[in-house]
């Protein structure tokens, strides 16, 4: 009896350790730091100063709102682009071509995000491939800078999110038996309302889980906005990085971190409510 219980905890211990040491403890610690006012002379004391500063400085909360907005936009665009791709892979492509297409989607993710970002920079920069191509086609008369604007950030984020959208979508659509689509046609449906009333409701758990992942990844992305965004790229993770690394203001950085965590949890919770999905149904996919 006691022996089996001992075994139970033994098996559970890696999970408990992982949760405790890598999830709960650092976050609790971060919360603690964010509520501390550091003073060399007076010693540390409890303070809401860092949260107050966030609301007092328009720069910070504007960046916060902007980051959330761009991340949401990225998620929607990723969904819009990935859905037809996933549909093609899951429902139309057959046998070998299906595998090849799926691999083609995954392949770019075998190199690091940094390399992919540099790849895009080579394409989009003023002396880059796209500008050169348009020049040689005579569409533009002098080099155009495609990099360092919000469009470039969006492009980079959508690109890095695609895989995480396509995989759950393909698995969700794969599980939709063709007979449901045929039944839709048989009962008089056309492509559009079969998509809306049969395919999308069926793929909803996949759509929501893909969206959650892409949203989280975009919101927390540092590299893409930093490298591709240029002088106007305001991104909340950049603010956190700046506070921690260049300002040595861990207290402010922690407060920002907690705020970002709150924001992402809130938006995920809201989107689950709106789509009437539960976290377990979408993550169990």
């Amino acid at each position: 009896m006691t022996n089996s219980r001992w075994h139970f905890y033994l098996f559970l211990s890696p999970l408990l350790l992982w949760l405790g040491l890598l999830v709960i403890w650092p976050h609790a610690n971060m919360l603690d730091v964010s509520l501390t006012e550091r003073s060399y002379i007076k010693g540390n004391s409890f303070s809401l100063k860092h949260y107050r500063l966030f609301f007092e400085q328009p720069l910070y909360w504007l960046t916060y709102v902007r980051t959330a907005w761009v991340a949401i936009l990225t998620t929607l665009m990723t969904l819009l682009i990935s859905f037809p791709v996933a549909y093609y892979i899951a429902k139309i492509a057959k046998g070998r071509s299906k595998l090849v297409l799926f691999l083609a989607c995954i392949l770019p993710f075998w190199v690091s995000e940094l390399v992919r970002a540099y790849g895009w920079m080579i394409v989009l920069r003023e002396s880059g491939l796209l500008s050169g191509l348009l020049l040689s086609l005579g569409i533009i008369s002098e080099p155009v800078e495609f990099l360092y604007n919000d469009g470039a950030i969006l492009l980079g984020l959508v690109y890095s999110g695609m895989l995480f959208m396509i995989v759950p979508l393909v698995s969700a659509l794969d599980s939709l038996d063709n007979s449901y689509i045929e039944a839709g046609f048989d009962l008089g449906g056309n492509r559009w309302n079969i998509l809306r009333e049969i395919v999308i409701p069926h793929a909803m758990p996949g759509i929501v889980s893909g969206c959650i992942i892409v949203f989280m990844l975009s919101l927390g992305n540092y590299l893409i906005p930093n490298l591709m965004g240029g002088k106007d790229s305001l991104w909340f993770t950049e603010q956190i990085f700046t506070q921690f690394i260049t300002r040595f203001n861990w207290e402010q950085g922690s407060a920002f971190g907690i705020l970002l965590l709150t924001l992402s949890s809130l938006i995920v919770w809201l989107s689950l409510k709106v789509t009437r999905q539960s976290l377990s149904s979408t993550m169990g996919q």
Partner: protein
Amino acid sequence: MTHPDDALSCSNLTKKFDSFTAVDDLSFTVEKGRFFSILGPSGCGKTTLLRMLAGFEHPTSGSITIKGQEMSNVPPNLRPVNMVFQHLALFPTMTVAQNIAYGLKRRGVNRADREKKVLEVLARVGLPDSGEKAISQLSGGQKQRIAIARCLVLEPEVLLLDEPLGALDLKLREHMKVELKQLQQEFGTTFVYITHDQSEALVMSDKVAVMNHGRFEQVGSPQELYRAPKTAFTARFVGDTNAFEGTVQSVEGDRAEIALANGLVVAARTESTVDLGKSVEVFIRPENIMLGEAAQSRENTMEAIVLQELFDGANSKVLVNCSGQQVQVHHSVSQASGLTPGNKLSLSWDWQHTLCLPKDGAS
């Protein structure tokens, strides 16, 4: 060529997949209001035929006419036919009522009429209070009825059914056979039903087409198919039977004498002309064979050794060995004594109950 009473007619319908011919030059008609079954083993082309009728496959050649209208260029969503899928394909993300209303909505039926029709059809299939249920809450039989209701509410000219009973357990399947037949009679809709289960076809249908290798071997009422199969394939596929191979020794009118491979000579009835010396097959249904001494008077007799009793109540049989060939014989419960394995007994049957048909592929 098409009769006004025909719900469906096909002429010279052919479907080829690369070099494989799934449906081979079929021509047939189905009268309005009939329960028409297509019976055949898997791979005989019956599913392809049904999918062509529904519009999911395009015929390689030939035409399909439904209610006098040519269907070649009509997409599935505009055909006056509906289909009950093998696994029913009830939309799991919708309630029962939403499933039934789906087709009505596509036709632009207004909300009030939709609700009325849904309630009506639910009452007719005997599930009046199920509208708000989720599909997963239904039992197997209830799902069948909802799948049929979803189609019938659209009042199709022809209802196509793709082995919908296949997934049910035996007991429920027996029950649903009766229920399906009743539903069909009640609604008066033309049913085209495909199955590989001869019992389903025999019980429910007005007419059955036996299909093999993309062609109809024989089309007729269940009784005709059972009593007077025209080909060896039909004889073997419809109902239980004992088959022997042999060669024709003599023919006298519709009576022929056949020398069997085991050396015996039996007399049989033949409808098609069989030539002397030709190899044929001889079929005797288990219920036509008599057992024991009382049977000596019949024309055809055989000595046999009991192998095994196959007890199944009123449908009990005994498996015997006749000169190296296994034969099934019905026996009544009163005859049950003396059926211990190893016992010798004699079999006998009338020549009228013995059917002689050319071997498959020989004609």
